[in-house]
């Protein structure tokens, strides 16, 4: 039985296999997820009162997030083909468009991160921008406001993490992305990457220990979400089965099993389980693997997703 499609179309970036999105979108999705996770963690640490002990979680983490988020948005901007018209994103709000939601969520995230940095300004940065010092003093007079900033960070971080997955899963023409588990996968992956990132750079023993444990929980949860993502597509229609097989035994299988599952989840989880049980010392190896795994996951999903198609069972 033959099923063959021959086309005279040869549009750049479309044929023979869709490749409209290069490195920029995976990097943007990764940095967005990482910042989302950092916001959730930072918000949680604010709620726990960690800002009273050190300035890392309430000042440096959101500062780093601002830089990472801006780098992600730069990557997104570089991907746009009609760059001079980027301002058009902010002349409207399209309720059915996840990208429009994302553009506006990002606008809200910047002030939320900025407020987080003002909970406690380190001595060396005080009086650099006087209005910020006055705002910081005002925030510190209202402990309830500090809690609300923590909650706002956790909420906006969760929204941002979800958005990075919804952005792809709403594009139903690409069967690999057409999964309701994708937002959960990107959110959990963002949280695990962020936990690994904070684990890697914090000098506070409590935070390092806490985030190593949290990362183990996120990585374990990520394995279950991967299970749901894979089984959901495997039990769906023919095109969805063919799409997920790109990862399971197709052209992206090596990257998926070796770099995403093996080096990105299983190996660091094993190392960190030993570390939190005091069998081995904490090392930067596990968190670095988690972060690299999170980045490679976005590349694999974005690239393989573009390869998946409703006619993928056909010879083209």
């Amino acid at each position: 039985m033959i099923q063959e499609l021959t086309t005279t179309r040869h549009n750049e970036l479309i044929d023979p296999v869709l490749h409209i999105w290069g490195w920029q979108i995976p990097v943007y999705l990764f940095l967005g997820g990482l910042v989302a996770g950092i916001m959730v963690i930072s918000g949680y640490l604010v709620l726990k009162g960690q800002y009273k002990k050190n300035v890392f979680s309430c000042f440096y983490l959101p500062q780093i997030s601002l830089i990472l988020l801006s780098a992600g948005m730069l990557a997104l901007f570089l991907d746009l083909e009609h760059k001079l018209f980027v301002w058009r994103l902010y002349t409207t709000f399209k309720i059915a468009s996840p990208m429009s939601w994302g553009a506006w969520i990002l606008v809200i995230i910047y002030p939320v991160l900025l407020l987080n940095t003002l909970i406690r300004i380190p001595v060396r940065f005080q009086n650099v921008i006087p209005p910020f010092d006055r705002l910081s003093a005002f925030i510190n007079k209202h402990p309830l406001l500090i809690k609300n900033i923590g909650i706002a960070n956790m909420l906006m971080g969760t929204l941002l993490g979800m958005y990075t997955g919804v952005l792809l899963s709403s594009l139903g023409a690409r069967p690999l992305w057409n999964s309701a588990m994708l937002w959960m996968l990107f959110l959990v992956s963002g949280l695990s990457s962020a936990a690994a990132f904070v684990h890697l750079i914090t000098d506070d023993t409590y935070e390092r220990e806490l985030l190593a444990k949290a990362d183990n929980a996120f990585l374990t949860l990520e394995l279950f979400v991967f299970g749901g993502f894979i089984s959901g597509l495997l039990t769906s229609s023919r095109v969805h089965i063919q799409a997920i097989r790109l990862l399971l035994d197709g052209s992206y299988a090596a990257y998926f099993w070796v770099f995403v599952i093996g080096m990105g989840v299983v190996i660091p989880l094993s190392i960190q389980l030993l570390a939190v049980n005091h069998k081995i010392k904490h090392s930067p190896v596990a968190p670095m693997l988690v972060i690299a795994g999170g980045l490679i996951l976005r590349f694999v999903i974005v690239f393989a997703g573009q390869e998946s198609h409703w006619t993928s069972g056909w010879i083209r």
Partner: protein
Amino acid sequence: MARFGMVIDSAKCVGCMDCVVACKTENGVPEGFNRDWIEYEVQGKYPSLHMEIRSERCNHCNNPPCVYCCPTGASHVHDLGGVVLITHNVCIGCKACIASCPYDARFIHSDGYADKCTFCIHRVEKGLDPACVSVCPTRCMSFGDLEDPNSEVTRLLQSRNHHALMPEAGTKPCILYLV
């Protein structure tokens, strides 16, 4: 309200590509890109093979995912006949519409915006057929109002078996192929 669509008799289409050339000429489509194209679909087991030759383009769907995902409203449904169009100076070139189209009908124009078939709306507004329809030497293509019970396209659909492309994608395409 009018709903423009196209009915193409795949039994008459010989894949001569006149429609492709007419479209490129009429719309100034840049070199290396196509708003419409010919697709040859072969199915079966030798020697019992069946071939369908189709002139394909944007399906101007009733349920257009490209319009829903557009963050700026550049992709929109035109008041005249529900034709799906792109406002070039509103498009940011994010390519979400390209990713959302199961027919891969869109591409990035060399000037940076997303581009695709417009059903030659500038001709249709003057009461003319789209360029591709007007040049077809076998008269296999018909354009008209799918909502009008007296239009040629409706009569053709009532008289012959027909199919749409990838109906399982749920986009409700407005280009239908007679078999």
